[in-house]
């Protein structure tokens, strides 16, 4: 429905506030926006089925965080009840403030998990792998193979376990695992060799043209220099705060050098992508909305760091503060729901409609 890059941008815009905010109002808003996104767009996709387990884990952590905090922190004025002082750690007054603080931490964890769950439901990992930049394509292929291998490994392990059991072997201690591990490894190695053969036979690796020795050496030296620049810049920032400008300049030059190196390497790979995703107007809308949202959050965080902070313990108020600007920023994250083409959810389950397929061929 949307371009993978759009979704990655959305993920960043949603995850950053989830990580840095502790204010329950903002967190609830973010949670609500993500939930809405899932129910309208993510529910019908094939990957949507994993949503339930993410949410269950989140709710479990949420439920765990409350008693954990309430029993271990004994600060606050509104005392609910007392546990005997003689009990280690948990003994003492149990306060409403500690309960609320626990609930807020739990809510933050739940929100992070729900954001990832929603992302997982709308983008499948193959789309994500396809989006790896070309200088990383080998890493992408390795991950893809690993994902393809795992289901086979599981079946193979079960077969082997059964085979050894009917030879009278009992799996009790760690040493007893050898009859399982050795054939599993041997099978995997044999398969890897076969896979390597088929990949070779299908021309894998012919897409990388090797640069001349001198150019390769030069580009590697360049990368080293860039890394040193970043390192020196960061240490300057840490130890000589007065040299701030120079430090930032060094870091910037280093980062640019690294990007240039990656671009150079990416160009060595003469590899094309099958079925490039196309970028449509709604993608632009969502990308811009996500970028604005992220920018607001970052600017607020830099100018007024206390905005996202919330603590129910005295002398603070139990009621969290609310900044409408941040509220707007979080609401922008519902944008995919508003601009998604009609029937997008249905389309997502089939990755692309057949009609558009044919157009491309023509």
């Amino acid at each position, binding site marked *: 429905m949307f371009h993978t890059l759009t979704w990655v941008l959305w993920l960043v815009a949603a995850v950053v506030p989830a990580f840095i905010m502790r204010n329950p109002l903002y967190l609830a808003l973010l949670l609500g926006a993500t939930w809405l996104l899932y129910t309208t767009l993510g529910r019908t996709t094939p990957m949507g089925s994993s949503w339930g387990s993410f949410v269950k884990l989140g709710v479990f952590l949420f439920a765990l965080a409350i008693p954990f905090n309430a029993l271990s922190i004994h600060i606050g004025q509104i005392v609910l009840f007392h546990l005997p002082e003689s009990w280690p750690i948990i003994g003492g007054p149990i306060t409403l403030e500690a309960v609320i603080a626990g609930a807020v931490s739990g809510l933050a964890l739940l929100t992070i998990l729900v954001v990832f769950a929603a992302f997982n439901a709308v983008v499948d990992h193959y789309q994500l792998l396809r989006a790896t930049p070309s200088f990383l394509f080998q890493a992408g292929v390795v991950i893809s193979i690993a994902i393809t291998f795992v289901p086979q490994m599981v079946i193979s392990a079960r*077969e082997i376990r059964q085979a*050894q059991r009917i*030879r009278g072997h009992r799996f009790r201690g760690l040493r007893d695992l050898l009859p399982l591990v050795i*054939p599993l490894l041997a099978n995997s190695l044999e398969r890897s060799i076969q896979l390597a*053969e088929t990949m*070779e036979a*299908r*021309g894998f690796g012919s*897409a990388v043209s090797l640069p001349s020795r001198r150019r390769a050496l030069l580009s590697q030296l360049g990368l080293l220099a860039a890394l040193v620049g970043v390192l020196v810049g960061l240490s300057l920032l840490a130890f000589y705060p007065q040299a701030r400008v120079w430090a930032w300049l060094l870091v910037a030059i280093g980062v640019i050098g690294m990007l240039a190196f990656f671009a150079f390497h990416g160009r060595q790979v003469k590899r094309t992508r099958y079925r490039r995703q196309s970028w449509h107007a709604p993608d632009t809308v969502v990308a811009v909305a996500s970028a604005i949202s992220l920018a607001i959050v970052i600017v607020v965080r830099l100018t007024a760091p206390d905005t996202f902070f919330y603590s129910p313990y005295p002398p603070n108020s139990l009621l969290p503060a609310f900044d409408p600007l941040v509220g707007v920023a979080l609401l922008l994250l519902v944008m995919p729901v508003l601009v998604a083409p009609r029937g997008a959810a249905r389309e997502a389950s089939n990755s692309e409609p057949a009609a558009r397929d044919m157009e491309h061929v023509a």
Partner: protein
Amino acid sequence: MIRFEHLSYRYPGADATILQDLSFEIAEGEFLLVMGPSGAGKSTLLRCLNGLVPHFYGGTVSGEVLVDGRDPVALGPRGMADLVGFVLQDPEAQFVVDRVEDELAFALENQGLPPILMRKRVEEALDQINIAHLRHRSVSTLSGGERQRVAIAAVMTLQPRVLVLDEPTSQLDPQAAEEVLDTLVKLNQDLGLTIILSEHRLERVVQYVDRILYFSGNGQRPILGEPRQVLSQVELTPPLITLAKALDWSPIPLTIKEGRRFARKAARHRPDGNKAPEATPPSQRRNDQPPVLISVKGLGFSYNGHPALQDLSLDVRRGEFVALMGRNGAGKTTLLKQLVGLLRPDQGRVQIVAPTSGAAMDTRKASVEEIIQYVGYVPQNPNALLFNDTVRQELDFTRHGHGLPPGEYEGLLDTLGLTEYASHYPRDLSVGERQRVALASILVAEPQVLLLDEPTRGLDYQQKASLVAFLQRERARGRTIIMATHDVELVANCADRVILLGDGQVVVDGPTRQVMSESLVFASQINKLFRDPALLTVEDALSLYATDAS
């Protein structure tokens, strides 16, 4: 199209050359079958065609191969990828990406083709192999036959002019193998694609191939020629051709249709004195029968809500040789696992009767350790079993697991033809030898009942023949054997009772001759040839017609 000139090849570290001074040509559009026992050099020859030998394996090459004017030894597999498509044996180990359509595009992406051309090529390959309905599927959900067809499609996208396949069906059941071979025949006849195939299942392809290249092993020169000409010189062949050679039918029939003509003529001249063997065994009185060893009553079982076995009942008596047949997913393997206690019944019960004491064990209460005292199970894939350094240790491991002292295995190893491999690493052996090591490592515990799951998968005719001989000997010694298999000829040669499963239920249960002569699908070649319930195997037919031929 392809020219070999004095090609010799030696693997690194090997003493002898595996390919010795080969010179021949393969024409464009030819369908060449490469056959011969395992280890004779078939795979090596195929790998010479795209440069995997020597680029992937090392070793020394002399002489020359030219494919469409290109030299694979110089260019290597990457340089040959767009000319020679290569498909391997194991349908599990050939996939880089989990989604069918992306897998098809993988090779194209590596060639750096423009996206529009890629789309066209992928669509074409999907249609050529007829797998358009699988395009969005995940590879892990496909059947073996579907996987092999996807693997073929994945190399067809590069539009090669030669397709090379190294035993593509040896890990498949007959139905799936048929799908794959039909696809190849279609590609050869409709597109004129040059196909070079190594294959054990001669009866499926031999009528379509133009020539056969036969590697006999033992360092002899391979024979190349027309199918009939090569088959007349080859020792181990499908039953139809073996019989045709024995009875001097000429020209050798390649299909049942061709064979029927000779069979009808032979039947007309059938000597009256020779009576066919009894079609049905004389009925025995009940109390004469040997005791029941395995009793299954109303067995029901399901995997995560998918019923695999339903209300299944059967008894197996001591000394019986039972073949379980039926299509994939009919519940054969599930039933075997029930009998050895790896799976437990959801409904009904499975009882194992101890032959000595006559005490019955319910598999729901007994542990696997107790059951395997009486029942041995050889799984489909011998690789799941083998992990020790030597064959002998492999046998010791089972003895230890059963709480038995290490024994002398000479007798067992000898009957299985494994004596010379006793101190070899089992995984270095050929598929057939591994299968026998797996068999040995179960038999070493002396189980009363032996369960076999697809024992002939991946075996060539030679290996199959030695397995048949071994099983017949075991049956004569009175061991009870239950075997799940698709191999009709194996059943015709060994089993005395066939149970046909369908949808987790017993469809037919009866003596082999009766079941086979009443079925069209599960009938042996000789049975189809003569349409006579008395004749199942080559031996049956020869005992009847030998005098006629002389």
